[in-house]
């Protein structure tokens, strides 16, 4: 039994030790690096948002949450695909949680809201999914960098070139009527028509279009060699389904933006997406080692194949890790961090090629023309059938000349007649 005096002695000894020792330990341990991650976790895009977070977390799970002796602290906030919410959450992350930088978001409107906010205060903001062309072109912001991300028009220009080589002369486009759709279609139409192709007709429909049959009816009679589709989420599923049930599949080839054949769309469908050709800077069925390892790891961890959201944020996390390591974890020096991020030549990511930023803060990398096929176990995935090396957001144009042409819109698609 411990008597009272003994207890007092021991506790005072403990107190003495702690008053001397513990603060020293605390002083030796540096403050954590705080990252603010934003994603839509409620609403229509909740599934994509969840995959975004999963991809980001997977990197840290595998590689440890510590850089240069500093712990990594990730705070996840839900932007609900709403610009007001995104702005409010970005403010909270920066001003209350005191994060060192921001990353994430899916929809362009949330991305633009946050970009506009950090424009004023210089907080670094990384956007692996926000694709709005002008964020790294005409309206670029020095502290907004598109690590591991992409723009719409950058992706579809190689597809246009490939289509010309595949012998397609006349193409019609079907697209959602908003900025991302305009850019995806614009990149395709400009390169396709400059190469001698012809855009027969363009169909624009509002987001969440319940019924594609009116367009499919007209598409049947146009006599085109291929149809270019630019649809995201539920629109993409419906489009593929109705394209098949109206008997166009097998008659007119379907090519499209990466979202039409993204894992988030094709994994729940039957045979409808088979043989669809799309373009992206990654292909989950790619054969290089880093891609194979990432896909296998992701599948083991989450029981599904990775989509664009998980892949880009996993790669983005690797990018940040390399940059943070290069500056010795000194994340408070924003200039140094941004400079380090700009200087990284990223290898060994699921993007499958060496990735680096151009002077405008946008990545240059290989773009794959991909086709949906079945894996041995019957799961559908995208395998590369052609590779375009070192594709820049300006394709083969001179950046300054290119940026003098207007941004893509419904009325300006860069079509050369």
């Amino acid at each position, binding site marked *: 039994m411990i008597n009272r005096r003994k207890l007092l002695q021991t506790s005072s000894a403990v107190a003495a030790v702690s008053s001397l020792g513990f603060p020293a330990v605390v002083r030796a341990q540096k403050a954590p690096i705080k990252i603010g991650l934003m994603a839509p976790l409620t*609403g229509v895009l*909740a599934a994509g948002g*969840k995959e975004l977070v999963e991809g980001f977390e997977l990197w840290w799970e595998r590689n440890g949450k510590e850089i240069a002796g500093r712990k990594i602290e990730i705070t996840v906030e839900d932007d609900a695909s709403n610009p007001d919410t995104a702005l409010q959450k970005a403010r909270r992350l920066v001003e209350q949680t005191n994060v060192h930088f921001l990353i994430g978001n899916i929809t362009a409107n949330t991305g633009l809201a946050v970009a506009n906010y950090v424009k004023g205060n210089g907080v670094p903001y990384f956007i692996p999914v926000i694709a709005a062309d002008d964020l790294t072109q005409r309206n670029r912001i020095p502290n907004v960098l598109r690590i591991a991300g992409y723009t719409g028009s950058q992706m579809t220009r190689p597809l246009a070139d490939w289509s010309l080589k595949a012998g397609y002369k006349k193409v019609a486009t079907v697209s959602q009527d908003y900025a991302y759709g305009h850019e995806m279609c614009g990149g395709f139409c400009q390169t396709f028509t400059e190469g001698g192709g012809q855009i027969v007709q363009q*169909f624009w*429909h509002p987001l969440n279009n*319940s019924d594609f049959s*009116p367009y499919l*009816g*007209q598409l049947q009679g146009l006599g085109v060699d291929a149809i270019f589709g630019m649809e995201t989420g539920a629109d993409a599923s419906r489009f593929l389904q109705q394209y098949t*049930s109206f008997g166009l599949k097998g008659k007119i080839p379907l090519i499209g933006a990466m979202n039409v054949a993204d894992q988030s769309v094709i994994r729940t469908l039957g045979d409808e997406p088979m043989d669809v050709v799309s373009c992206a800077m990654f292909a989950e069925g790619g054969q290089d080692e880093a891609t194979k390892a990432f896909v296998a790891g992701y599948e083991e961890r989450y029981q599904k194949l990775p989509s664009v959201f998980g892949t880009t944020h996993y790669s983005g996390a690797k990018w940040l890790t390399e940059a943070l390591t290069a500056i010795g974890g000194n994340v408070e020096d924003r200039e140094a961090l941004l400079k380090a991020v700009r200087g990284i030549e990223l290898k060994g990511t699921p993007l499958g090629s060496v990735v680096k930023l151009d002077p405008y803060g946008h990545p240059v990398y290989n773009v794959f023309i991909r086709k949906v096929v079945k894996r041995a176990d019957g799961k559908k995935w995208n395998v590369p059938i052609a590779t375009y090396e070192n594709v820049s957001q300006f394709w083969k144009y001179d950046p300054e000349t290119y940026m003098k042409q207007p941004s893509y819109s419904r009325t300006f698609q860069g079509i050369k007649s």
Partner: protein
Amino acid sequence: MSVFQVLNGLTFAALLFIVASGFTLIFGLLRIVNLAHGALYLLGGYIGLTVATATGSYLLSGIAAMAGIALAGLLLDQTLLRWVKGHDLRQVLLTLGVALVLNDLTLVIWGGDTFSVPIPSVLQGAANVGSVFYPKFRLFVLGVGILTFICLWLMLNKTRLGALIRAGVDDAEMVEASGINIQRVFLLTFMLGSALAGLGGWLGGAFLTLYPSADSEILVFSMAVVIIGGRGSLIGAAVGSILIGMLNTFGQVWFPELAYFVIFGPMALLLAFRPLGLFGRAT
């Protein structure tokens, strides 16, 4: 106007009719603007999806969707709505709340990916209708829509329950005064209306696919149908569905830039001149 586009409009109208007829029954008799109708539609679709995937039987999945949603309607009416009888605003807010809760529940259970109810091979592919090839499944939906209309019409005009419902639409107090248990009629109608939402979800699950927010889209369409057709009118729901279905199809073909305006513009005009809808009657 090609046969093809007319069929597009009619098949879409058939789906709208199935959902909107349930909405208008409840609205007409119980005076409840059931904003959870869309959520019940979506839940029905998900139930259909789960049963169809588990058992492989399309027919069974349809029955399960209807029965499941009828039961959900029973629960909704008995546990929640009974406390707010006669308070319009509270009913609207309550059903809106239920819609939001159901939405989040479906998101938790089925996730946010887009699903489609698997259909049997008999209904896959296209059939030859006159001069055009047309998807069999859409023709099937058209058939179910017409059948639903006939059944509902017979029920309303030739049966005792139908007579009670019609009487209840006109004057519920009078019906009760003549010794009828109007509460039971209310409950049956609510379950029937919900079952129609379930049927719609099951068909719509393969027609328009299932995903979060599919509920609010169909709800907006069915509200437009009911507003145009007139509250509680079956014929109104049928005419409204055909109108909206056709406007939707031809609006997209002729004025793609104004796809939504061509549906809701005429609706607003109609409201200005006939606030009760085409077949609505003042009570």
